[in-house]
């Protein structure tokens, strides 16, 4: 996966000033959401609970890999629906729930689209699950070098941020 900063910068730049800043922040958060809900629990479990579980003979591999489901389109849809429906009113900051869901989903889809363009030594994004287990990857750039785009993305994001209405 490209790093979170690459996803953040790209999602700031993508709307090119067409969103108000409050909405832009929701869109940008949607862009980091797939990694936050999938990688963070998976890495946390694999580095803390899993070594202990293995020594006790308990297999947690499926739990660790299972969180990858929230980095798939359908998993993302569940997370976004839960957030948009479950957030208390005071956190909405005047953004209607349907609009919030659309912005989070849009940001998340931008994240998944960027990820599908990568090349990994073993393709692993099974975006069509549960309909197919076939990994999808376009292989346009090495997954390790997303940060090479920062010199372009930083000024683009700055320009888009300045263009958006407060």
């Amino acid at each position, binding site marked *: 996966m490209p790093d979170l900063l690459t996803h953040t910068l790209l999602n700031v730049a993508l709307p090119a000033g067409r969103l108000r800043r409050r909405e832009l922040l929701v869109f940008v958060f949607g862009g980091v959401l797939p990694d936050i809900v999938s990688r963070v629990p998976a890495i946390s479990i694999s580095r803390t609970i899993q070594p202990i579980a293995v020594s006790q003979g308990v297999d947690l591999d499926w739990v660790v890999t299972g969180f*990858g489901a929230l980095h798939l389109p359908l998993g993302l849809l569940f997370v976004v629906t*839960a957030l948009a429906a479950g957030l208390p009113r005071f956190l909405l900051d005047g953004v209607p729930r349907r609009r919030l869901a659309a912005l989070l989903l849009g940001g998340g889809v931008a994240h998944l689209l960027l990820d599908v363009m990568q090349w990994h030594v073993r393709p692993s994004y099974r975006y069509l699950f549960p309909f197919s287990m076939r990994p999808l990857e376009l292989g346009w750039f090495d997954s390790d070098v997303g940060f090479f785009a920062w010199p372009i993305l930083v000024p683009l994001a700055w320009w888009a941020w300045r263009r958006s209405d407060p």
Partner: protein
Amino acid sequence: MTPRHGLALVSVLCALLFVGLFGRAIDARSVSLAECAARPASCEGRELYLGFTRVVAAEGDTVSLRSWMGPVQVTPWLPDEPLPSPGTIISVVGYHGGGLVVVPELVKEHPYRRFKEVTGIAMLGAWLLALGFWVLRRWRHRPSHA
């Protein structure tokens, strides 16, 4: 419970179910080195993937790796790939060669892994801090306090 809360609850349950289904589906299709070490005969020749694993030593045609499952030997190393230095992070696609041995077919070095980890943790920290401050601010300015 309002319909909105019901929808949120159902979505959380669906997400958890999806996590379980996906995890089990992947688990059924792959073998882990830990399983293979326990039952070498059942795994020999099956495909294995070791992602982002640290090189401990490299000598001759054998590279020793340290994974959470313990020490792993990658041998024989691919003749057209340079031997990695100790401390390097690599990924290996290969097949199980018995015990904790992997016969590599494809390897990739990750020279920017440490940089990605550091920037990733920094960005995650920044996001969580920003979210925390934002929630706190919204809580203080919620309508019942107006």
